[in-house]
Structure formats: C-alpha cells, structure tokens
C-alpha cells in the first residue's frame, strides 16, 4: 500500500502536527497529494453493516443445514470490498494548481475533475461517526452547477482539513494565501431543550408522535393485530430516522460570523461545519409553523447555489440549509440582516378582492420591496416569508390565470438559481404588478452591478 505512495501524502499516520501543516501548505503551492490512508475504511463504513448482515445470515443458514455453503465466498466478498476501497484510495490524488483544485480518481475509468476556486459557493467539513472516531473529516466543495458533482475529499486528517478549507476559501476570495483564518465571532447557539420542543410541536412532529402512540396502543390492546403492524414498524423506523436526522442537523448548532461568511457547526454524531459566504445567498426563507407561533419561534433557512441533492441523505438534500432551526424573531432578524442586507418588511397587503381567489391563504398574503430586495409572505397554516435579493434574480415572470384576470389580479414570480425557492408575489393588484414589472428589471440590473460586499 505504502510502496507506491508518492512523496507527500497528506496526513500520513506517522507524521507529527507541524510537518503535516507544512505539507498542506505545499499542497497550496503544488504537487500531488493522497487522501488519508484510513479513508477507505471510513468510506466503506456504510457497507460494513451490510457485510455483517450477510455474514450473520450465512452463519445462521450454515448452522441450520450444517453444510459448508458460503464458507469461501463470504471472506471473498469482504476481501473484494476492502480491495476496492484500497485501490480507489491508491488511484485518487489531489492538487491545488493555479487557483484550481484538481482531483483525479478512478482505476479503469480515470476521471479528472477541476474545481475553479473562484466559483466555490461553499465548503463543508463533514465528519461521520466513524470518521470522528479516527479523527478524520471530509471536505465537500459546493459549486454553482445545478447538476454537477460536488468536489469531495474524503477523508483528510481533521486538522489538515480545517487548514485546507481556510486556504481554499482564502484562495476563493482572492485573499493572500497565507492569511490567518479570520477570527470568528460567535453569534448564538441553539439550545437542545428548545430544539426538542420545537420538533415536537413543529411541522409533522405532532402527527408523528400521535401516530407512534396510537400504533403502540393498538399493538398492546389487540395482540392479534401485531402481525398487521409489520408495515407500521418500517414506517416507524422511517419516522425515527427522519426525526433523528432533523435532531442531528440542529443539535448544538452554533452560528458565528467571520470575515468570509457565516460559520455553522452542528451535529451529535455526524458533525458538519459549513461556511456560507456573504453575498452567495440566493434566497432566504422564514417559516413559522402554526404551533410555534404562540411561543414566537421561527426557523430561518437559506438557499445557497449548488447545494447538492445527495442520495444517501434522502429528502434532506432537497431542503434548504437551515441556519436557525428554532429561534425567536430577534435572532432571525439579526441573521437575516447579515445575510440579506436591507431586507424589507412585508407591509403591503394583497387587495381585498384577492380573498375570492385564495380564501385559505389570504390572511398571510403580503409583500414588500426595497431597491435591493423583495419579500413575499404566504401560507395557509404556517406563515412562510421569502426574501430574494434583487442581485440574485434570474428572471421575472408575470402569470395571470382567467380567474385572476376577472378580479384584476396577477402573480409575480422572481426566479432564483436552484429549484426550491423563488419569491412568488401572489395575487397583487394588476396595477402594482405592472408597476413592479416595469421598475424591477432596472433595479435588478443596478443591484447586479453593485453587489453586496460586507
């Protein structure tokens, strides 16, 4: 394994701390580097459970029929998995060259990826449970492409990964390469008690708990129904995983402000730390579920271009980045003012005649605009407020259905990059829509030409 390793593998287990730092510094200057030798183990971590199940079931069948079936192919499978991991580690290398991160990988199908650092949207530092035990971390580079792959460096020694991330971000922002990582100023942390309370009350949490309690009651009262509950168990496991994921992503979340953006750190088992650069926020969304409103709680989410939909994360990837899982309005307003400066309040109501078209959500319909940002609120039970900075608007659409035409209303859409968020000013008076439609393109252009830089 080590025989063919090139000169400077980052984080060779034997190297001591300062030497490793130097090597990362070399990595900025040039030269090829390897990932950490233990990374095949971490990357195979997901498959370990599968392998164990295969081995166990093999054992059970062997004990039952007393045969020797599978005695040879089981170790072979394990050996294959290990071999694949080691080979993929051997053929993977990375380099920083001329403000571009290059990753080469693949044995049969070589692929060479180039990530221009100037176009990085954000860099995440992810530590899965196993990686944490081994002191490793994975770097994920998020680029703007909507379908392209994320640059992944899995895994590096954690201290190296942190230094590398600071350097990559420095390069991305055109700061001097050896600039020290900017001191972060802690804004706030989310308390665990409030997080749990908010999950119980918020969104589907209440429904989930009712379902779980109901199922348990049914199962204990009617023992015969236990068999029929087999499907429900799988459902309950699904619920528990989604609950856990939500909890993990919000657990001990701390938000701190640094020169290059907001730093987020969270996680109970798998920790993730993420940097959201200022001026890269495409849209922000404030959600107030029905049951949260008595407590004055809200959730703040932002859309950053290139947040990849990861298969293994399931629906989580589709959601926006939550920067405030639960907090009060003052915290949300403060964060928002850092990310979307000059965000206006939604103080203009939809005209009363819009009640005929949207009777169920009319009570929340409102909008507001300034010369840098547009805001719209909507929602039936929960109130959703969306801010879109005008410098991020990709296109503007006016849509008018037949019923809206009768009422003299129209809907104005402001599209931003990505699929999940766009501001929708529902059911404005047609005069307002036409006025906005005539001034917004000019305002967007002006905002693009003088983008927000803190």
């Amino acid at each position: 394994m080590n025989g063919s390793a090139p000169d400077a593998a980052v984080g060779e287990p034997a190297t001591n701390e300062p030497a490793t730092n130097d090597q990362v510094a070399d990595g900025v200057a040039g030269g090829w580097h390897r990932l950490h030798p233990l990374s095949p183990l971490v990357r195979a971590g997901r498959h370990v459970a599968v392998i164990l199940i295969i081995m166990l079931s093999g054992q059970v069948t062997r004990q039952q029929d007393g045969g020797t079936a599978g005695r040879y192919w089981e170790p072979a499978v394990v050996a294959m998995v290990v071999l694949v991991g080691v080979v993929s580690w051997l053929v993977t290398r990375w380099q920083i060259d001329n403000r571009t991160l290059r990753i080469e990988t693949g044995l049969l199908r070589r692929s060479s990826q180039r990530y221009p650092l100037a176009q990085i949207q954000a860099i995440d530092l992810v530590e899965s449970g196993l990686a944490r035990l081994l002191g490793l971390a994975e770097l994920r580079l998020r680029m703007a492409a909507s379908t392209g792959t994320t640059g992944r460096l899995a895994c590096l020694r954690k201290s190296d990964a942190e230094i590398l991330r600071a350097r990559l971000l420095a390069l991305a922002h055109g700061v001097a390469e050896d600039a020290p990582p900017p001191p972060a100023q802690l804004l706030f942390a989310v308390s665990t008690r409030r997080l749990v309370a908010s999950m119980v009350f918020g969104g589907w949490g209440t429904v989930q708990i009712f379902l779980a309690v109901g199922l348990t009651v049914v199962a204990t009262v009617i023992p015969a129904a236990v068999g029929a509950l087999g499907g429900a168990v799988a459902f309950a496991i699904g619920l528990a995983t989604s609950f856990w994921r939500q909890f993990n992503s919000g657990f001990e979340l701390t938000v701190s402000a640094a020169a290059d953006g907001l730093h987020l750190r969270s996680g109970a088992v798998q920790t993730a730390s993420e940097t959201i650069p200022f001026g890269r926020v495409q849209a922000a969304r404030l959600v107030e579920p029905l049951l949260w409103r008595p407590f004055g709680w809200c959730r703040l989410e932002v859309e950053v271009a290139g947040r990849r939909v990861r298969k293994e994360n399931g629906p989580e990837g589709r959601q926006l980045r939550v920067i405030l899982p639960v907090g009060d309005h003052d915290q949300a307003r403060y964060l928002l003012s850092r990310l979307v400066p000059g965000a206006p309040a939604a103080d203009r109501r939809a005209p009363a005649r819009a009640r005929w078209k949207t009777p169920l959500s009319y009570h929340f319909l409102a909008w507001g605009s300034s010369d840098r940002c547009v805001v719209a609120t909507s929602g039936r039970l929960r109130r959703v407020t969306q801010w879109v900075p005008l410098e991020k608007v990709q296109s503007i659409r006016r849509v008018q259905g037949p019923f809206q035409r009768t009422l003299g209303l129209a809907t104005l859409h402001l599209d931003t990059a990505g699929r999940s968020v766009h501001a929708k000013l529902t059911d404005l008076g047609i005069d307002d829509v036409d006025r906005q439609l005539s001034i917004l393109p000019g305002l967007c252009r002006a905002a693009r030409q003088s983008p927000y830089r803190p």
Partner: protein
Amino acid sequence: MTPCSVDDNDARCLPRPRDATSLLPSALTHSQRMDRMNDDQDWTAPSARLLAMRRTQLAVVAVPSAVTAGLLGAILGSTWLGAELALAIAAVAVIWERILHRRVKAWAYAERDDDLLVRQGIMVRRLSVVPYGRMQFVDITAGPFERMFGLATVRMHTAAAASDARIPGLAANEASRLRDALARLGEARAAGL
C-alpha cells in the same frame, strides 16, 4: 414587427373609473390595460408558418381518428352512427383549431436593451422578463414538423429552473439570428451567480 393584440375587442371598451368599491373590475378593462403596457414594447410575433404547422399537426391527429371512428361506427353500428362520430371529431377539431389560432397569436417576444420579453397564453397569460446577463446558454431545437415548415424553437436557459423563455415557431434564419444576438448580449452583460 407590428404589435399584435391579444384581444381584438379592446378598442370597444371604455376606461373604467378607478374605485375600490367595485369588487369585480371588468375583464375587458383589464386586458386593455395589459395591452397598453404591452404596446410600449416592439413585439415580434413568431413566423406565420407556426399556425400552418399547428394546423398540420392537428390534421395529422384529427383526420385519421375521424376516419377510423367513422369506419368503426359504420361497421359495428349503422352508417349514421359512423357519420355522427366522424362529424363530432371534426367539430372538436374545428374548435381546437380556433384555440390554436388564438394561442399562436398570443406568442410574442421583444428584444429590449437589457432583457428579453416573452409573452404567451390566452387563458393563463404569462410574461417573462429574462435579463441577457443571466443567460447560461441558448439552444435551438427543431422537431420533424418544425423542420418540415422551416421553423425552429429558441430557448434561453438561466440558472433558475423556473425561468421559461421559449419562443417557438421562428423561421430558421430568424432563429439563428436571435441565438447569435442573445449569445452576444449574454456574453457582454454576463454576471456571476
């Protein structure tokens, strides 16, 4: 390059006093206002051959189905039943042709200094404003029917999935002119994400 009107009735209607008491403002007044705004622009309509193409597409579906239904009706029922079925399909096709006519008339685009306007739809009316600087790429597609009529569809893509700037039924040379113009303007005004 004539500004094309969506609704020919507009000339007849009178301006409505702007009062908040009226809950249901008249539809005509509104479309008049809409056209007033649209008339500010120099709208270009797609090629006249687009309507011919849509009619051909309709005929290709309607004629065989009318003939088949007529024959089936005549064989399984009576000659009258066959004739009725064929006539019913023909009637639907004629009504659909009127809808197609109005739909084709509703398409229009305008190249402004900094953005492209695209207008479409009669029931649900849409107007898209796409700044040239936001353009990621332009593509031209031409299906078999479009090629038969020497037409092409130009579509301008932005980073937003919801953006919809599609112009169907452009004459082939106009399509490539528009593509080149859009590409040039997009490059000149390009802005990052």
